[in-house]
């Protein structure tokens, strides 16, 4: 009996090793396969184009995108919704405003590591604060005071899309 169980377990492990995907990934893959098979030729073509563009990117950028995707999967539905809405608002910006937004975003990237660390800590503290209070904090910030009225409207829409 024991040997039978051992053989079964061994087969199970070998099967897991030889399949291209892990067991945890299997339901996702099955769902993706169904989605892929049901796609229209146009949609498939678009995905293939995206795949090519993704493959053409440097390895680091590709990994960053996968990380973004994994982070997104871990978010709550409300946070996912907020980011999607923010993306829509961002996409709707004209190029000059988008440049300004990117410029502001780049400030975060250019911070020295210790400042970044402090910033992330503050952000973690702030995440639990309700939107109304966060808005008050925002209005007191130096960043906010540096914006003109139009920019304030744009950033308000980006920060609180809902």
């Amino acid at each position, binding site marked *: 009996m024991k040997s039978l169980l051992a053989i079964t377990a061994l087969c199970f492990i070998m099967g897991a090793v030889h399949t291209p995907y892990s067991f945890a990934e299997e339901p996702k893959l099955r769902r993706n396969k169904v989605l892929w098979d049901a796609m229209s030729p146009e949609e498939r073509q678009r995905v293939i184009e995206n*795949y090519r563009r993704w493959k053409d990117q440097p390895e680091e950028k590709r990994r*960053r995108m996968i990380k973004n995707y994994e982070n997104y999967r871990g978010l709550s539905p409300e946070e996912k919704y907020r980011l999607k809405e923010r993306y829509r608002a961002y996409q709707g910006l004209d190029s000059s405003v988008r440049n300004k937004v990117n410029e502001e975003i780049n400030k975060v990237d250019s911070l020295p590591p210790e400042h970044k660390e402090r910033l992330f800590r503050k952000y973690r503290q702030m995440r639990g604060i309700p939107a109304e209070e966060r808005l008050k904090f925002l209005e007191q910030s130096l960043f906010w005071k540096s914006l003109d009225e139009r920019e304030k409207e744009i950033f308000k829409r980006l920060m609180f899309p809902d």
Partner: protein
Amino acid sequence: MNCEWTKDHLFSFIDRELDQQQERILKEHLGVCRACRHEYEKIQRAWDALDCWEDALPPERVRKNLLQEIRSREKSKWLSVAFPAAAVLLIVAGITFFYKSDDAGVYRQLTAENEKAAIRVVKDISQENEEDIVSNLQLLREKDFFDSLDKLEKIDYLPLVEDRQNDSGRDQRSSLDLDAA
């Protein structure tokens, strides 16, 4: 029996169509009524005169004309039905053909486009790694979104960016003093 009844039945009497009783009554009336007898004699004479006539065939020309007239009338009668029917059929066939050919054209065009697209996609899939695409499908469907996601998240950090002009020394200014909060 009055004169009116008698006059109405004179022709039947001559043709011997009356029954015995009617015939007897009529004969009795003719015996006593001079006006009716006179009427009877007049009809009888005209009847006898008809017997003298001979049946003659119409001239060939008249017969031909008559037959031609009958045929043309029959023909025109047929045409008067056939023409509108043909016109209606022609219109219906025209409309049907127009729409059929139009539909068929659109269908052919769409089918050709779909076939082309399908062939192109199949060709593309054979060139690429389908497994790789399927395993990253969610990501690839919204590539641009996931590409800019970390950037979009950084918007939340902006109010927390410290004033870098004053970031040296102890007077480091934070836009939000959350540590104190």
